[in-house]
C-alpha cells in the first residue's frame, strides 16, 4: 500500500463519523524505485490531506525532512517534489494494519494489500 492510496482511505464502520485518517501500524515496509514525474506529483498535491500524509510518513519512520506545511510555489520546486514523490509512491507498507481513529477497528494489510471489507454487523 502506497501512501498516496492511504491518503484516500477512510473507515466506514457503522456509526463512525470521522474514520480518517487511518493510523498505520506497519510491521514490514519497503522502499521501491518509481519513475519520477514532477507534473504528476505537483497535480496530486492539492488532492492530498497534507497533514495526514506527514503523519503517515512519520508513523512509518520515513518522513525524513518532509515539511509539516506545504511550501509555497511547490510546482517549480523539484527538490520538494522529489521528497513528496518518495513518500507518496516509493514507500510501501507490505504488512501491518490500518486502524480506524474513532472505532479502533483494525483493517489488515497483507502482501501490500489493505483489506477494507467490513463484517455484516459493521455495515
Amino acid at each position, binding site marked *: 500500500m502506497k501512501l498516496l*492510496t492511504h491518503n484516500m482511505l*477512510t473507515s466506514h464502520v457503522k456509526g463512525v463519523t470521522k474514520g480518517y485518517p487511518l493510523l498505520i501500524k506497519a510491521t514490514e515496509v519497503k522502499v521501491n524505485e518509481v519513475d519520477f514525474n514532477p507534473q*504528476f506529483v505537483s*497535480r496530486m498535491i492539492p488532492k492530498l490531506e497534507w497533514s495526514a500524509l506527514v503523519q503517515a510518513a512519520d508513523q512509518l519512520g520515513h518522513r525524513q525532512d518532509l515539511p509539516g506545511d506545504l511550501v509555497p510555489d511547490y510546482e517549480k520546486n523539484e527538490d520538494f517534489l522529489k521528497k513528496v514523490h518518495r513518500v507518496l509512491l516509493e514507500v510501501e507498507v507490505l504488512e501491518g494494519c490500518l486502524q480506524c481513529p474513532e472505532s479502533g477497528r483494525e483493517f489488515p494489510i497483507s*502482501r501490500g494489500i*489493505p483489506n477494507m471489507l467490513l463484517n455484516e454487523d459493521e455495515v
Partner: protein
Amino acid sequence: MKLKELESCLQQVDTFEEPKILLEQYPTSPHIAACMLYTIHTTFEDIEGKLVADLGCGCGVLSIGAAMLDAGLCVGFDVDHDALEIFRRNAEEFETSNVDLVQCDLCCLQGDAYGKKFDTVIMNPPFGTKHNQGMDMKFLRAALTMAKTAVYSLHKTSTREHIQKKAHDWGVKMEVIAELRYDLPASYKFHKKKSVDIQVDFLRFSIT
C-alpha cells in the same frame, strides 16, 4: 508503445485460476483490454501522468496496461482476495511499480468516499447477470463519484438506453466509443456452448 505491442504484453498477464460465478468473474481479453486502453490513451489522453482507478480489477489486466502506458498511479479495487493475489503476482512479474491494490466492496462505498480523487476510472464491471442483478449500475455509480474527468466502462449493448437515461438523470454525458463483440469462452461448467458472443458497448462518461 504501439497497440500490437501492448496487446502482446497483456497476453502474458495471468488470469483467474478458479473464477467465481457469484462474482461474475471473467477475464478481459488482452485484445479488448489493449484496444480500450490504447483509445483512452491516444484519443483522450486520460492515462499518461494521471491518477487512475480500476474498479473490479480482478487479475489486473487493465491496471497493468494502464501502468505500461505510464499512468502516474493506477489503483485496482476488488472484493476478491484470490483475484488480487493473482494481480499482485502479475505486478511483481511485470515489475510494475506504478500500481496499488485495495480490497473493498464497491457496493458499500459511502457518500463521498474517494470523491473526485481520481482523474480517470477504467473498468470492465460485472454485467449484472444471474444473481448479480443491477451490479453494473452500482459499479457505474461508484465510478462516477470517484472520477474527476472521465469513466470508461464496458456494458451490454442491450442496456444502452437504460444507461443513457441514468446518465442523463445523474448529469453526466455518455458517449458510445465503440461496439465490441465480447467473446466469452465456456468458463463455467453450466455453459452449454463453447463460446458466446455478447454485444458490448465501450462507453465514456464525462464528468461535467
